[in-house]
């Protein structure tokens, strides 16, 4: 059910995004930061689900809060003439890789466990 919701949401979002007007190039940088922050939250959510400590409140607040905060920080950096968005990208992308690593390791261990079980079954049958 959740997967259906995700697919439907993605399709509707893509359609909306295609048919909305273009945003000015000046603001597209902020939007990119917001997207990176949101993606980080999504991967964090997936990792949390796999670790069985997923909390919807944390996920939603993290999703919107990180996006808005990253935009505000980038804006502040623009005003201060410091490229704060670089720091934001480093942090978010680093966390994204971390989460991806967690996901990868989870599925890897799962797969290895499954194989070990199969081998055990085969050896038991052989005996």
């Amino acid at each position: 059910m959740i997967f259906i919701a995700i697919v439907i949401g993605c399709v509707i979002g893509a359609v909306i995004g295609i048919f909305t007007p273009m945003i000015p190039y000046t603001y597209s940088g902020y939007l990119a930061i917001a997207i990176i922050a949101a993606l980080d939250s999504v991967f964090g959510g997936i990792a949390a689900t796999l670790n069985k400590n997923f909390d919807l409140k944390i996920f939603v607040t993290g999703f919107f809060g990180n996006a808005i905060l990253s935009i505000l920080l980038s804006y502040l950096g623009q005003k201060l003439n410091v490229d704060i968005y670089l720091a934001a990208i480093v942090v978010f992308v680093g966390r994204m890789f971390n989460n991806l690593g967690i996901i990868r390791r989870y599925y890897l261990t799962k797969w290895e466990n499954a194989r070990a079980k199969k081998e055990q079954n085969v050896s038991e049958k052989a005996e």
Partner: protein
Amino acid sequence: MEGVKKNKIISAIKGIAGTKIIMCVIISVICIVLFAVMFMQFKTVEETDITAIENMRETELRTAIAEWKGKYEEAVEQLEANKKTITEYEKTIEENGETSELVDKDLEESNMKLGKTDIYGEGIVITLSNTNEYTIDTFDLIDLINELRYAGAEAISINDVRILGSTFISQPQDGLTIIGGQRVASPFVVKVIGNQTYLSSSLSLKDSGYIDRNRARGMQVVLEAKNNIQIPKNTTDREINYMKEGEN
């Protein structure tokens, strides 16, 4: 007891289902937001000419915009100034057109007065002829010209020789009359352009008028009024060698 347990279980299931539905809705909303923003960004990045602005910082772009704005304003100012000068030129051209029209009119009038163009108009024609009793001499002609000018003649010709201020009438020997360098002889056809009534009445004054006086002396004088008298232009051209404009 069993019923209460059942109710509890149902409500728990409902609660789980409710939270699940809420979760689904929230996650789909989040997906919608994320993908909408992502596709907006894709489109923006794709459609913006990045190669031109890629290396430019926003501040640089801002200064560039400011520069272009300044240039634009300058251009607009120049355009307005040019428009102003154009209207001024147009005004002066109009004025010049008026003055040149006046000058043209003056020139035309002067040319007519100086006899440089063929002219026509209403007036009278007087024909003077010799008779056996009387031979016309230059003084008769000069007298007539004076009378006609007194009566307001605008243009006079004798035998199609235009009479101007500079035209001379001489009689170097008997029977030879020269007007403005051309030989003329009786009958003298004097064409006059001017007010017909003034001209004819001043010539036809009883006894003292030109016609009566000369008829009494035996000259043949015929006067007729005509509406379309044509006088050719004066062909002689006097060069100016000695006189100069202004005071010495």
